[in-house]
């Protein structure tokens, strides 16, 4: 159990602090950070048209969002035509209930799951566990965190916060009754063992649940992009395949998906394309060798349709590649769990207040130095800092800032607005700081600076302000 899970959910500061002190986490983060950045850099250097592909992707997503209702209806029509069913879920509760009803309809007991962050958003596993199903995550990362009873800390690499040692411990505990006997030498030993366990789960599953990277309106297909092949076994082997996806995953045509796929894998893992890209269309046809007899799609709204006519609509362009968090210095420092949201990192800071309420999530958009690297790497050019700034404005207007923050901001504002007052304050504080710094050139403590001084000194002024000196010079001329 991670220490972080013991901290109150909405206390971002304490969660971040705990994350910074977690040596395992820091070790894991240090290892992966440069990996993600370098791989993406290398991958896009092989795609000269990458920036124009990004522009086209923006156009496709904007167009789709502008006509989302139309494409959703067309999608539904085509799913039905291919023998499937579409269910509409307004929120998490409704989505979970729909899935439960489908499973009950087919007398299902054993469920396998491909990696789906939307299913994390609706906390589907907890819900299905409570209803008595045997649910197994089949993506290796998801499987590991399911064993450890954790949530994903990254949208494409759910167990990125763990070291190999921690994974070995989890496997020893769950696969070998915590005996010390089996020794895993390499990562591939762990992989082989997981594969052996999961193979049986695939063969005995009644229902397979996957997410979708894209839903194609033109054909009624769902598309998954994976590297392990577990998604394919999840959706092909059981009699029933349930897709859970949010409404903004819709894309008009196969051509549009092809374009988006060209920017997805390079941005995400730095691959030219992922190992498996699988299109599922409806139920098994007489000519098909494999495939489910029942095909259901649950379309989740959960606050997204409100964003369609909102200034922050652009956040819905996200294709969940994770590039923003892979390049975010704040994410690199604290990992995903500190955010306490299904969506961590910059996209989480921009999206979470909209999906899970500003009051619960308002600290996330403040936890950014606005370095802008997320916007720079986002394949669909989402202006993440701008959206975070909007959330800050809303938090300020809703009085969510602490008394201290509000007080200091108003005091500062008052001083800056009246330049005479500004001059006096600056004159007095320069004198004081020079006195405290005792000619050392820096200050080691000041009020309102919190833990700042445990890490850094503050450079002190060494002479009168520029304006004071400039005035003096002008007088002397």
């Amino acid at each position, binding site marked *: 159990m991670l220490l972080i899970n013991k901290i109150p959910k909405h206390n971002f*500061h304490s969660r*971040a*602090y705990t994350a*910074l002190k977690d040596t395992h986490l820091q070790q894991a983060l240090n290892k992966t950070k440069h990996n993600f950045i370098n791989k993406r850099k290398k991958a896009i250097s092989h795609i000269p048209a990458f920036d124009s592909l990004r522009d086209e992707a923006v156009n496709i997503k904007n167009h789709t969002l502008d006509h989302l209702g139309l494409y959703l209806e067309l999608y539904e029509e085509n799913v039905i035509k291919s023998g499937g069913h579409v269910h509409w879920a307004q929120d998490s509760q409704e989505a979970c209930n729909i899935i439960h009803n489908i499973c009950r309809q087919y007398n299902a007991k054993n469920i396998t799951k491909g990696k789906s962050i939307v299913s994390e958003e609706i906390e589907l596993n907890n819900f299905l566990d409570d209803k008595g199903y045997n649910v197994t995550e089949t993506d290796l990362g998801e499987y590991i965190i399911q064993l450890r009873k954790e949530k994903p800390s990254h949208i494409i690499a759910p167990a990125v916060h763990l070291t190999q040692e921690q994974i070995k411990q989890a496997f020893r505990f769950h696969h070998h009754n915590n005996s010390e006997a089996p020794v895993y030498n390499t990562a591939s030993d762990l992989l082989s063992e997981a594969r052996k366990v999961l193979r049986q789960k695939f063969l005995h599953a009644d229902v397979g649940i996957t997410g979708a990277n894209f839903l194609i309106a033109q054909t009624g297909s769902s598309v998954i992009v994976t590297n392990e092949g577990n998604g394919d076994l999840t959706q092909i082997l059981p009699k029933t395949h349930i897709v859970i996806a949010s409404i903004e995953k819709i894309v008009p045509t196969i051509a549009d998906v092809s374009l988006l796929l060209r920017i997805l894998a390079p941005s995400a893992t730095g691959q030219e394309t992922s190992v498996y890209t699988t299109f599922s269309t409806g139920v098994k046809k007489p000519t098909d060798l494999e495939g489910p007899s029942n095909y259901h799609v649950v379309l989740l709204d959960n606050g997204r349709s409100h964003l369609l006519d909102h200034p922050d609509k652009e956040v819905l362009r996200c294709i969940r590649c994770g590039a923003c968090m892979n390049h975010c*210095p*704040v994410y690199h*420092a604290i990992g995903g769990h500190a955010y306490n949201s299904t969506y961590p990192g910059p996209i989480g800071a921009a999206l979470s207040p909209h999906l899970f309420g500003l009051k619960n999530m308002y600290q996330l958009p*403040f*936890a*950014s*130095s*606005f*370095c*802008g*690297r997320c*916007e*720079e790497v986002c394949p669909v050019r989402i202006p993440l800092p*701008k959206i975070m*700034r909007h959330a*800050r*404005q*809303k*938090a*300020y*207007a809703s009085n969510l*800032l602490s008394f201290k*923050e509000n007080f200091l*901001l108003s005091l*500062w*504002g008052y001083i*800056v*607005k009246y*330049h005479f007052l*500004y001059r006096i304050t*600056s004159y007095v*504080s*320069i004198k004081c700081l020079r006195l405290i710094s005792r000619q050392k*050139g*820096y200050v080691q403590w000041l009020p*309102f*600076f*919190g*833990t*700042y001084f*445990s*890490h*850094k*000194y*503050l*450079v002190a*002024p*060494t*002479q*009168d*302000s*520029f*304006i004071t*000196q*400039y*005035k003096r010079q002008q007088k002397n001329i």
Partner: protein
Amino acid sequence: MPITTQEKRTIKGTKKQVGFFVTCLVDFLRPSVGFNCLKILETQGFEIVVPLTQSCCGQPAYNSGDKNLAKTIALQIVDSFNQCDYIVVPSGSCAAMMRKHYTSLAKHSSTQYELFSAFAKKIYEFTDFLYHFCNYQHPPSCANETSVKHIIFHDSCSSLRELGIKDSPRKLLQKLPHVSLVENSDPESCCGFGGVFCVKFSDISAKMSQEKATHILNSKASCLTSTDLGCLINIAGTLRKKGENLEIRHIAEILANDKTSPSI
């Protein structure tokens, strides 16, 4: 918002009035940076104006979510500089606030929007202005330098990503005969300053700053410089606490070859 070719065409060859926006950090912590900027700009034949009613660009309010306060401050700044043809700012962060963000403080197409948008077109970061619109020559005193100075240039996030400034400061530094540029092994990552961020999230900021500091120390450079005093005081604060005494200077001090002002 990098400088456009059209802008480059309109500014060259005319004697214009250049307003100098000191920035609150330079005003308060390192006035020498401002005086060195003026010294360099004066050699370029501009008429320099320093409005005494200026204070802060309003960024702390803007980033804290108080848009109204930011707008009030922005309008005051616009008013202070209304007679200037160009406004030069020794900070990418403040320049980006005025060049890129002021317009978002007013409703699109309103009178205030037009005002901000006209103002934004006059704003230039110091090194970008110097490189594109001036004929900067190294000061004569550089000829007396006997040893090579290994300088590491830190890209501030605002200069790099909001204003698209990468080459200008480097090209200017290369004009100095005694300077050799050393590159950072992770040049595009943030130093952890972020204005109020470094106080509000000081633990996270510290982690970022420490990494930046390690990269800088590993580069073996003897001097660190940047277009932004904010980044420099943040990195300096980190290094000084560690007991490191690397020379740290704003780029204006290096370009003016100012050796009398103390290192940050």
